């Protein structure tokens, strides 16, 4: 024996778990076989299950998360062996990067907000709204409906546009999840708007164009393809709800969990931690009450809850919640849908079917210029006017029906993006859950510890001396 004998946790006469304080004597077999571990450099030992519970609860505690994998006494690192594939590590990294970018965004946002007046915010929201409309409807439609020059805008654009970013952000909270879809505000009032460019013709001429039903698209009906914007606006929340239902079922099937585990998702996924100094006594009292409620909720969560799915969800919520990330993500929706739309457009060059589905049409420019405004004369047919009004209501103005429906492929693209994003975060959740489930604490020998400190079953062999 050249190496000195080093005892392990199994050589102890009495084992006492530093967490639950249960004891186990070597000569009295335990009723329930539990695994013991010596995870660090000091004499503390523990049941593996107790230790994993402690680590897990530390990980969910913001103030302790840094030391979750360290011995509270000697500070040695716990070595955890678990199913932690490269994919999960990459996803965790990505999560961290996104969160820290979100934090930077929060700081920048705070700075600007403090020094910006309400008018500035209004202007920002309006120009964001205009940008979002251009991203979502495409340049051509934008030039027809809004144009770059604000003096051309219809009066309601000044109400509609600034509301776009606000509704985008609101739509991300669970409060609105089932009722409002993020893109509804983008085209809500637009289809029925008198296009700016057509308006610049005299009203008589515009009416004539509207009435002269062109042979290409006779009467826009409810069944036309792509769906008329009004129809899409009505059906979108429906599609969204069906999708959420199906995906939630898929989610629980993948994670093998009960639907109840996401019961107490807060309306706002982050807890607002920015506090301003307050001097009113009432405010403080109210705050204390609120904190009480928060603590109660925390207690319920701490309550010996070792369900790995719930733990993975909490862990992810903690590590990915940041105001900047949420708002930034919401405001990027038009850009993302534009990107996905042009991706689909590019793909459609290789597939007839896709081109039909996306209803891609040549730019409107050539057609509009070719319209003759003569011939129709001054027909004062009431029926014709009603028909024109109905057409506008169902299908939008002619411009809307005949232009290349960029909005349609952008909506489809956004849908695809949402599905992919949901799948990736589900994969992340699944891998996190599996990582938690497969955790094992590495058991180490008592190397480096004075053997005389340990209460051993057998005395150390004399070869030591």
């Amino acid at each position, binding site marked *: 024996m050249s190496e000195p004998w080093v005892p392990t946790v199994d050589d102890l006469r009495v084992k006492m778990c*530093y*967490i639950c304080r249960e004891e186990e004597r070597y000569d009295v077999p335990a009723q329930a076989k539990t695994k013991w571990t010596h995870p660090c450099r000091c004499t503390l030992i523990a049941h593996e299950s107790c230790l994993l519970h*402690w680590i897990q609860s530390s990980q969910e*505690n913001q*103030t*302790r998360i840094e030391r979750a994998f360290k011995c509270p006494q000697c500070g040695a690192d716990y070595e955890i062996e678990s199913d932690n594939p490269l994919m999960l590590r990459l996803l965790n990294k990505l999560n961290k990067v996104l969160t820290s970018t979100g934090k930077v965004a929060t700081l920048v946002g705070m700075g600007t907000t403090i020094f910006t007046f309400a008018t500035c915010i209004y202007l920002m929201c309006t120009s964001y709204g205009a940008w979002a409309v251009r991203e979502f409807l495409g340049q051509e439609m934008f030039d027809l409906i809004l144009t770059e020059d604000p003096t051309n805008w219809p009066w309601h654009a000044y109400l509609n546009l600034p509301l776009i970013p606000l509704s985008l952000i609101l739509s991300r909270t669970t409060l609105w999840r089932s009722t409002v879809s993020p893109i509804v505000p983008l085209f809500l009032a637009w289809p029925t708007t008198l296009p700016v460019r057509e308006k610049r013709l005299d009203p008589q001429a515009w009416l004539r164009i509207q009435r002269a039903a062109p042979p290409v698209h006779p009467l826009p009906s409810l069944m036309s393809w792509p769906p008329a914007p009004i129809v899409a606006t009505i059906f979108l929340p429906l599609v969204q709800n069906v999708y959420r239902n199906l995906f939630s079922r898929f989610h629980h099937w993948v994670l093998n969990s009960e639907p109840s585990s996401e019961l107490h998702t807060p309306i706002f996924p982050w807890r607002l931690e920015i506090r301003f100094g307050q001097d009113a006594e009432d405010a403080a009292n109210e705050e204390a009450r609120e*904190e*009480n409620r928060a603590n109660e909720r925390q207690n319920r969560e701490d309550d010996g809850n070792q369900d790995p799915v719930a733990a993975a969800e909490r862990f992810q919520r903690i590590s990915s919640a940041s105001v900047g990330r949420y708002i930034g993500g919401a405001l990027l929706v038009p850009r993302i849908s534009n990107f996905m739309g042009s991706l689909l457009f590019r793909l459609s060059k290789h597939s007839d079917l896709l081109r039909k589905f996306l209803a891609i049409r040549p730019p409107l420019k050539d057609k509009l210029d070719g319209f003759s405004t003569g011939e129709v004369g001054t027909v004062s047919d009431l029926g014709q006017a009603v028909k024109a009004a109905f057409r506008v209501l169902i299908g939008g103005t002619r411009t809307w029906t005949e232009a290349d429906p960029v909005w349609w492929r952008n909506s489809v693209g956004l849908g695809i993006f949402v599905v992919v994003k949901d799948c990736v975060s589900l994969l992340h959740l699944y891998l996190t859950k599996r990582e938690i489930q497969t955790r094992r604490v590495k058991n180490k020998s008592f190397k480096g510890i004075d053997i005389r400190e340990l209460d051993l079953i057998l005395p150390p062999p004399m070869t030591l001396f």
Partner: protein
Amino acid sequence: MALAHTRRLNKELAEIHAGTPVGINLVNADTFEKWLFTIEVMGTSEYEAKKFLLMFRFDNTYPISAPAVQFVVDDTHKAPVHPHVYSNGHICASILGREGWSPVLTVIAVCITIQSMLASCKKKEPPLDNDRYVPRAPENPKKVSISLMVSPLLA
């Protein structure tokens, strides 16, 4: 595992019955929700010949989370005047917070820490923000909000 905290408290109680450090005495441990101890500082100190009543309250997350510990303040008992003890009995000690607590600690270890916190006191004075803290603090010290705890920094 619902009974984990009672089993652990039972173990600790057995150790306490076997003997407690000088100056620390068990008064009442009839339930596993609330224990009472008397704390006395031995030797010469600011608190010579004074006995304080220390109350521990446990929920079923113990020992994963800390017990709620405070001095009893009523008709017969007072909290010690100490820079880390508010006049309502709440104690400002890192080991009792979410950050400093760990299951290595025990009820007796907490008693010893508080005893030595009193013994090492140089000047008997209440915490700087005592007047601000006490009227706003909830009854249970574990439910104190973070903004109330960092108030000395803001004051």
